[in-house]
C-alpha cells in the first residue's frame, strides 16, 4: 500500500516511516512542509496519506488545508490526520463531505503501534477513525443535552467505540464480550437513537457521528 507522509519533526517522521515499512506499507513520499505535501499528493496518487495538521511554512493548519484540498481534487482520497491536539471544528470539516476514508487522531496514538497501523488500514479501506478525545467531547455534549439518556452504561460504551470507528470485531475484543452481544447492543442503540442501521461499517460510523453532532 502506497503512503504519502507529512510530518515536520524529523524524529517523528523517521519513526513513522519505520513503523509503516515494518507493517508492509510503501512510503512513497515523506515530506516536511505544506507545498511539498500538495505536490506529493498530486503526483504520487497514494492509497493513503498520513498528515500532520501543523506544518511549515505557516505553522498553522497547513497540513489539514492541503489534505482537504487534495480531497476536493480527488474525492474520498484516504487521509489520516495527526495532530498535537484535537479540535471538533477540524473533525467536522474532515467529515463534512460525508465520504469517509478519514481519520483524525492525536499524535500520541502512534505510540500504540498496532492501533495506529489498524487505523491507517481502516482509513485506506474507506473507513472512518475518530480520536477517542473527539468522541469523548461529542458524548459529553450528548449526555448534557440528554440525547443519549436512554442508553444503558454498556450501550454507551459500545456507542463510544462505534463512533471511534471500531468494527464489531474490534468492539468484541475491546469489551471482552461475545460478537452476538455486540450485535444486540448495536441494534438496541440504533433503535433507541432512531438511526438507520447499516451493515456497512463506514456508513454506520458516519450515521452515529452525524447523530451525535446534532
Amino acid at each position: 500500500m502506497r503512503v504519502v507522509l507529512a510530518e515536520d519533526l524529523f524524529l517523528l517522521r523517521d519513526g513513522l516511516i519505520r513503523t509503516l515499512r515494518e507493517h508492509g506499507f510503501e512510503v512513497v513520499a515523506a515530506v516536511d512542509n505544506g507545498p511539498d505535501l500538495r505536490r506529493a499528493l498530486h503526483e504520487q496518487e497514494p492509497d493513503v496519506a498520513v498528515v500532520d495538521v501543523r506544518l511549515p511554512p505557516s505553522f498553522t493548519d497547513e497540513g489539514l488545508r492541503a489534505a482537504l484540498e487534495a480531497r476536493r481534487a480527488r474525492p474520498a482520497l484516504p487521509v489520516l490526520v495527526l495532530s498535537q491536539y484535537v479540535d471538533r471544528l477540524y473533525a467536522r470539516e474532515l467529515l463534512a463531505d460525508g465520504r469517509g476514508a478519514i481519520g483524525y487522531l492525536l499524535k500520541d496514538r502512534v505510540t500504540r503501534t498496532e492501533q495506529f497501523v489498524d487505523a491507517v488500514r481502516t482509513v485506506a479501506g474507506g473507513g472512518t477513525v475518530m480520536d477517542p478525545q473527539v468522541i469523548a467531547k461529542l458524548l459529553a455534549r450528548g449526555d448534557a443535552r440528554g440525547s443519549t439518556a436512554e442508553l444503558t452504561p454498556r450501550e454507551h460504551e459500545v456507542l463510544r467505540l462505534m463512533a471511534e470507528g471500531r468494527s464489531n470485531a474490534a468492539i468484541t475484543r475491546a469489551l471482552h464480550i461475545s460478537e452476538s452481544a455486540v450485535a444486540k447492543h448495536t441494534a438496541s442503540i440504533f433503535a433507541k437513537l432512531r438511526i438507520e442501521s447499516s451493515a456497512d461499517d463506514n456508513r454506520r460510523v458516519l450515521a452515529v457521528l452525524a447523530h451525535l453532532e446534532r
Partner: protein
Amino acid sequence: MRGQAGGWPDGTVRALLRCQLLSLYAFAVTALGALVVGVMLLLPVGLGRSLLPGAARRLRRLSDRYRSWATDWTGTRISPPDPLPEGEGRQRAGAVLADEGFWQDVRWSWLEPWVGGLLVAVPPTLAGFGLFGALVQPFVWRLLGPDNWYAFVLVDSTPSMLAAAVLGLLFVAAGLRLAPAVLGLHARWTRKVLAAPYTTELVRRVEHLTDTRAEVLDAQAAELRRIERDLHDGAQARLVALGMTLDAATRLLDSDPAAARDLLREVRASSARALQDLRDLVHGIHPPILTDRGLGDAVRSLALDCFLDTHVTVELPGRFPAPVEAAAYFAVAELLANAAKHGGGREVTIRLAHAGGTLTATVADDGRGGADPGGGSGLRGVARRLSTVDGTLVLHSPPGGPTTVTLEIPCASSSPKTSSCSGTG
C-alpha cells in the same frame, strides 16, 4: 442604547421635536448663565461666595444634560470635565473659580443661546411657518384682507391660497428634512464647547494606562506563576516518576520479565497523562486553533463544545492583533461558560463583527437573566482583562432575561480573510 436619528418619518419627526426642545432649553441656559455671572458679581460681597457653588452645580447639571443628549441622540461622545470641587463654603467658591470645567460651562452658557439655540430653532420655525401656510391659510385668508402675504405669495384668491398651502407643505418638508442634520451639527457644536480640555483627556488617558499596565503586569506574573506550578506539579513530576519506573523496569528485566512489562505499561500510561497535561496547559495559554484560524473559527470551536444550542455569526474581515484575538476569545469563552452555568437558558447567540475600527462581540442567551456585573460570575475579571486592550463590556441582564453582553475592542484588522473550510458554525 443610542437613539440614532432613524428613518422617515419617525426619526425626522423625533429630530424635529428634539430641535424644538433644545431651542426652548436655550432660554434656561441663558437664564442660568446670567444667574451665575450675577452671583460672580456678588463675590466682593460675602453673599456671592456662599451662592457660587450651588449655582455652578446647577449649571453643570444643565451642561451634563446637553452632553448626554448629544450622546443619546446622535452618538457623539463628549467626555465630561472633572467633577466640580467638593468642599465647604468659602474655600469651595475659590476652588470653583479655579476649576477649568466651571469656566467652560460659563463660556458655553453665554454662547449656546446665540449659536446652538438659533441653529436648532431653524427647523421648528420652518415647520411651524409651513403648518401655518398649509393648514391655517385656507381658512383665514378671506379674513386677513387684501395685504395677506404668505412668504412671497400674495394670498388674495383660491388659486393663490392653494399655492400658499403647497408652499407651506414644502416648508414643513424642508424643516423635517433639515432636523436630523441640524441636530447632528448641534451635537458637534456642543462637543466643541463642552468636551473636556485636551490636557484633561491626556491626564485621564495616562491614568488609565498606568492602571491597566499595573493590572497587565500583575496578571502576567500570576499567569507565569500558574504555568510554572502546573509544569512542576504536572508534566515535570510525571516525567520524574516515569524515569524512576523505567529504572525499576530495567532492573527487573532479567529477574522478573512479567513485572517489568507491567511497569512499562505504567510508563506508557503516565507518558500519555504527561502529554495530556501539557496539552491542557498549552490550550490555557493560547488555544492552537486561535493561532491557526483566528477568532472566528476559534469561537466556532468553543460553540461546538458547548452543550447549549449555540449559533455563531462571524462578520470579520480578517485577522486581528494577537492580544486582541486572545482577549476577545477568552472573554467569549468565559461568557459562554457563564451562560451554560448560571444562565439557565437553552440557546446562545454569538455575533462577531468589525466596523468603524471596533471589534464587537455579542453573547446573548435566553436564560433567566439577573446577572450581576459585580457578582462572582467572573464578569469583573472579563472586564479587567478587556481593559488591557482598551476594551469595554456592557451587560444587559434584566431579571427574567434575556442576558446580552456586548464587548467592544478598538482595533484595526490586519491580514486578509482566512476562515474555516466548511463555513458552518
